[in-house]
């Protein structure tokens, strides 16, 4: 048990370093002068990878039964995905904004 714990802790430290590196990459990318949309895409992808790692390892979702993963994660993603239907509207907001002189 003892060695099990310490070996797990070792892997956690590895993951921790990895997460910090991803955060570092995010900052690095921010100053690479990408267009806003591309930057957003990169950052979101990295953030989702980070969140995925945190979910699976830090929050132990990987070690639970798969049914837990399949009950929770698709549900949240589905709801968040549905929320994206507001976007056509946000662009309309920018396009039709009352021009105040």
């Amino acid at each position: 048990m003892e060695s099990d714990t310490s070996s797990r802790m070792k892997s956690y430290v590895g993951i921790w370093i990895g997460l910090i590196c991803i955060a570092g990459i995010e900052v690095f990318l921010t100053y690479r002068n990408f267009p806003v949309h591309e930057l957003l895409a990169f950052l979101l992808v990295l953030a989702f990878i980070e969140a995925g790692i945190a979910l699976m390892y830090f929050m132990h979702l990987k070690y639970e039964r798969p049914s837990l993963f399949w009950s929770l994660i698709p549900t949240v993603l589905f709801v968040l995905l549905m929320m994206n239907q507001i976007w056509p509207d946000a662009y309309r907001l920018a396009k039709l904004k009352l021009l105040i002189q």
Partner: protein
Amino acid sequence: MHETSEHAVHQHAPPTSFIRKHIFSLDHKVIGKQYYGLALLAVFIGMVLSWLMRIHLAWPTWPIPGLDKLSAVGAPAGVMTPEYYLSLMTMHGTIMVFFVLTNAPFAAFGNYFLPIQIGAEDMAFPRFNMMSFWTTFTAFLVMIAAFFVTDGPPISGWTAYAPLSAVGKDAGPGLAMGQNLWAISIAIFCIGSLLGALNFIATTLDLRTKGMSLSRMPYSTWAWFVTAVISLLAFAVLLPACILLILDRTAGTSFFIPSGLVLSDRLQPHAGGSVLLWQHLFWFFGHPEVYIAILPSIGIVCHILPVFARKPLLGPRATIGCMIAIGFLSYMVWGHHMFVSGMNPFSANLFSVPTLIITIPATILTLLLIGTVYGAKMRFTTPALFCLGFISVFISGGISGFFLAQPSLDTYLHATYFVVAHFHFVMAVASIFGVFAATYFWFPKMYGRMMSDTLGKWHFWLTFIGVYCIFMPMHYLGLAGNVRRYSAFVDDYLIALIPVHKFITIAALATGAAQLIFLFNLIWSRFRGPIAPDNPWEGTSLEWSTTSPPPFDNFGGRHMVVYQGPNEYGVEGTANDYVMQTSPEKIVTG
């Protein structure tokens, strides 16, 4: 390492002090009754508000005696001012949707019967359960307090569209303190509902007794479970929306307020927000909320109808599948409330298709219920009648959904009485019919006494015919273009429609009065009704395997073991025509 974990449920002894027993009780049965009582109080307040509104619409100059006592400003000499009409309308909508339709079929009956139906001794977290009731109760008090502040309750409707709801007193009376109280109350309500939903899900998943597999759960339990999942995610969106609204109102932010607004001749000091954002957030919650209101009632009817039809529900798996499908689809369709709201018109088609698709599971559910009636040996008790009434009303209300789901027709029908008719039929009346059925059905279990069937039948007939007289004509008004939320009809074409409104008002007053029969029946039967046997209706589910009313730990220390599904009615070759879920006998299917 596991022996230390436990649930408080299994350890606490029945409380003896009055406060622990009846007020701050951890017992899910008491909490269920508390929710029911709160819903009953709320429904009568909401009904009286609707009476006042209906009287004002039909006879706008009549002074209503006593109304000036409630608000001297809102109703000088008893004549309602336009803003007071809107105040009452807002409160009617809010109280009915949140404190009645969310509470009665879901929180009240769910709390009482979900643990019993799955054979548990209590909810998974009794303390959370108590907290969620008292949180909801606090929300109710805060909401009612809005009646007594200077300018009265808010006038922005139960949807509280920004910027009317966001800019404060310059937008009109009631939008200062009244609207603050509204937003705070709803935020508190969200917290209470989230706590409740967590508890329901955990209980359903973890506290099922031996043999109670998911597929053997009664339909009502399924419906409460699906509803809990919906509300867990829906209220999670309304909560931040309310917080942002409160910030806009009190802290000077402008999430929902664009720049350059002039209200009451004052240029508002806000900039940069979006009005449609509130509508998106609100309806992202609001549409699932509709299913939070109706799904438990569907489940209750699916549970009760077979008992009185003495035959199994048609298509058990399809029923549950449809409930889940409705829950799933409810998150894809909220934009149909916003077809003409200034939303991008392309999105309208995006929202219209899933909205129409929802009619498929709804139709299947209705057809299965009708198919269940086919060839049944119907016992026409009051709960059975309310179930049949539910089907009829649900059809009538659902049909108009076909119209409103289409953006091209919504350009004409949006914000007319057609919409009022639609959602009252399908969400309010249908849901309340489920609640009535449940009340007549479970009252013997809850109080150990039967309700009067004669009074119940009078109640049913008057209510059933009454609701058709109230809401069917509203379709015609809608087709004639009668706009809703008008406190008086001054347009030329609306004046011609006032006779219809008078008819509706009379029907509403009569139907409302018929509810007094119900109230009388409820109170009278509580003390004077004949003593109920343990299983008066010959039902199969677990609540009928215990005493009426159930003991503190629901089954008196016994551990129920389940061998059957909840659907074993009309079984041939058995002593009775049904097999209890706890009965180990083998059923020969032929």
